[in-house]
């Protein structure tokens, strides 16, 4: 275990700790797809990673699993797991042992993540036999049980079904059964409901939350849908162009979103009942390699200031509870998980300084026009 100067909360609370993680396709860290990412995931929580496509959300999850896509390289930083140690330093063989067994992943497109020429029963049983060493008949029994737990209709019948014979919602359930069958404690869910109808999405999300309770899962939920985030998560990290730009407990984020990007995402949501059209964010996420200097969001930001184009803003703590107290203070440690911080110069004046009392509100720049 590496000695850390910023220990997040009591030692037994964190499950995954990502520090300064950079992953890219060449050596330039500034332009890397994932850029100096810090992330703490608490045991038992649903942590949502939000952002538009191309922000590096999926690559982050794949890196945690040690599944870098071809051409991608680990440029620096660590991924610490409370029990498994430093994940990126494990050998291929050790990675294979934890992958699936302790940390599992469900993917956005179940149709392309499932093997089309094998029955879903075979695919679930394979997990049970490989990771749990079960006999064929016992694996079969448990596979049926898992299909039942993910609310698959006619589980015994569906065991013989091939992926194409299932609807999108059923494929997603099958993949969830496969991911959970080995008994992981951490689930990385990459846009698990994006390909589904809204009604089926609601069912799959409910199911995910039920299983979390039942199995004591910790979930890293990757999504671009803030509605899903609001309904399912405990804490949220907003990711833009490879780095986190805001982090907060979910109520806090929706109540007082700080970063202009977060506020733009919220203003993009459709409103039922006619409060005017959604706003959208002009422009698009810059590709790695085309990022501007300074704050990467500056070209799309409506509140951009000259300094934003010069230097990347540092983290600025927005919540009142922490920052003021010394790190050894137990109260401050508990509040680690409640902290609200953002990388934006707009909040610099409102930020608490060490050893000084902090203001309660994020600052005078909260724009009620963009809040809903």
């Amino acid at each position, binding site marked *: 275990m590496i000695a850390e100067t910023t220990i997040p909360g009591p030692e037994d609370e964190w499950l995954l700790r990502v520090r300064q993680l950079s992953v890219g396709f060449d050596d330039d860290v500034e332009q890397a797809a994932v850029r100096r990412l810090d992330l703490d995931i608490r045991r038992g929580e649903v942590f949502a990673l939000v952002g*538009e*496509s*191309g922000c590096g959300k999926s690559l982050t999850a794949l890196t945690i699993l040690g599944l870098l896509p071809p051409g991608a390289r680990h440029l620096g930083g660590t991924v610490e797991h409370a029990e498994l140690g430093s994940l990126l330093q494990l050998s291929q063989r050790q990675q294979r042992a934890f992958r699936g067994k302790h940390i599992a992943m469900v993917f956005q497109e179940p149709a392309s993540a499932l093997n089309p020429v094998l029955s879903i029963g075979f695919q679930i049983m394979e997990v049970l036999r490989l990771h749990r060493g079960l006999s064929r008949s016992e694996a079969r029994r448990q596979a049926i049980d898992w299909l*039942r737990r993910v*609310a*698959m*209709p*006619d589980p015994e019948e569906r065991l013989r079904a091939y992926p194409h014979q*299932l*609807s*999108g*919602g*059923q494929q997603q359930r099958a993949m969830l059964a496969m991911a959970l069958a080995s008994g992981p404690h951490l689930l990385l869910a990459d846009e698990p409901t994006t390909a589904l*109808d*809204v*009604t*089926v*999405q*609601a*069912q799959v*999300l*409910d199911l995910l939350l039920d299983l979390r309770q039942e199995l004591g899962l910790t979930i890293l939920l990757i999504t*671009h*849908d*803030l*509605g*899903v*985030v*609001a*309904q*399912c*998560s405990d804490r949220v990290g907003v990711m833009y162009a490879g780095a986190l730009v805001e982090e907060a407990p*979910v*109520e806090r*984020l*929706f109540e007082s979103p700080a970063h202009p990007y977060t506020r*733009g*995402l*919220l*203003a*993009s*949501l*459709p409103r*039922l*009942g*006619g409060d005017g*059209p*959604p*706003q*959208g*964010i*002009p422009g*698009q996420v810059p590709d790695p390699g085309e990022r501007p200097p300074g704050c990467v969001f500056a070209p799309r930001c409506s509140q951009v200031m000259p300094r934003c184009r010069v230097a990347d803003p540092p983290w600025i703590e927005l919540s009142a509870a922490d920052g003021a107290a010394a790190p050894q203070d137990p109260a401050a440690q508990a509040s680690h998980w409640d902290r609200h911080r953002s990388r934006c110069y707009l909040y610099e004046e409102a930020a608490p300084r060490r050893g000084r009392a902090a203001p309660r509100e994020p600052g005078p720049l909260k724009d009620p026009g963009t809040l*809903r």
Partner: protein
Amino acid sequence: MTELLRVRDLSKSFSLAGRRREVLQGIDLTVRRGLNLGLVGESGSGKTTLALCCLRLIEPDAGTVTFAGQDLSQLSAPAMRRLRRRMQMVFQGSLEALDPRLTLGQALAEPLRIHQIVGDAQMASRTADLLAEVGLAAGLRTRYPHEISGGQRQRLGIARALATEPRLLFLDEPVSALDVSVRAQILELLEGLGERRDLTMVFISHDLSTVAQVADHMAVMFEGRIVEEGSTRRICRGPSHPYTADLFAAIPKADPRHRPRRVRVPAAQLSITSGEPVSNGGGCPYLGRCVRAAALASHEVEICRFERPVLRPLNESREQPLEGERVACHHPMRSEAT
């Protein structure tokens, strides 16, 4: 307002794995000029098939489609092709809908050439105009579809459809695959187009919240039938069909303080969700999932079990039932607007 498109008693069935499946059953629908229609329902409910039948890209089994006063089934193939200039479709999946070997400029020139809209001399200026109209930089003309973002591809698909100056535009899930931020941009673009051009749009989507942004009217489809239709305003305020209400309830609210526990659908009924039709004799096809029926006394539900509800004007008993507001339910929910 004048009728642009009128669909009467349209039916279509496909044979799938030896089983006959009724994909569209007796669809009646009218699109008026200048009033955008939203076609809403889960996958498998027949929305896309209905659009394809309207364009006669699929031949319906029965029923008529009338566009600007012309019965399409009477038209010869060349006449139909000419008419399609005025009736275009933006297909779902912007990447699959574009030829990967054509640059954006070539893809845009294709409809202009096929329909002989402009000669080669004006081709460059016309494609440039179209790119500008949908908010794409002229420099993108030499790019290939895989080199641009999903939002840009969707814009190109719209530009291609606009090239022939259609009066009616079908858009199949135009924003479902896009990020929320980009989604809002595309919806904004479409709204602007509707105002600038004499263009009426039919939006096909499973997501009520996006359809509600752009549609004046909505038709909600379930298993090949329209189960509710009416103004977007009325339906958003108070849906009459329990299915429409369920679609609303399923939209995740962007408010963490408001996390409703949804009514659980028993696992045995989940196959219905997948678009697999469940045979229910002559009864209401939605009965298996109907939350409202579960709350009613058994003698009241009797009719739902044995008689298939037909689309009837809302408040039929009143002297002046609301025009265009219809629902197919024996026990419609009370609506605020009525």
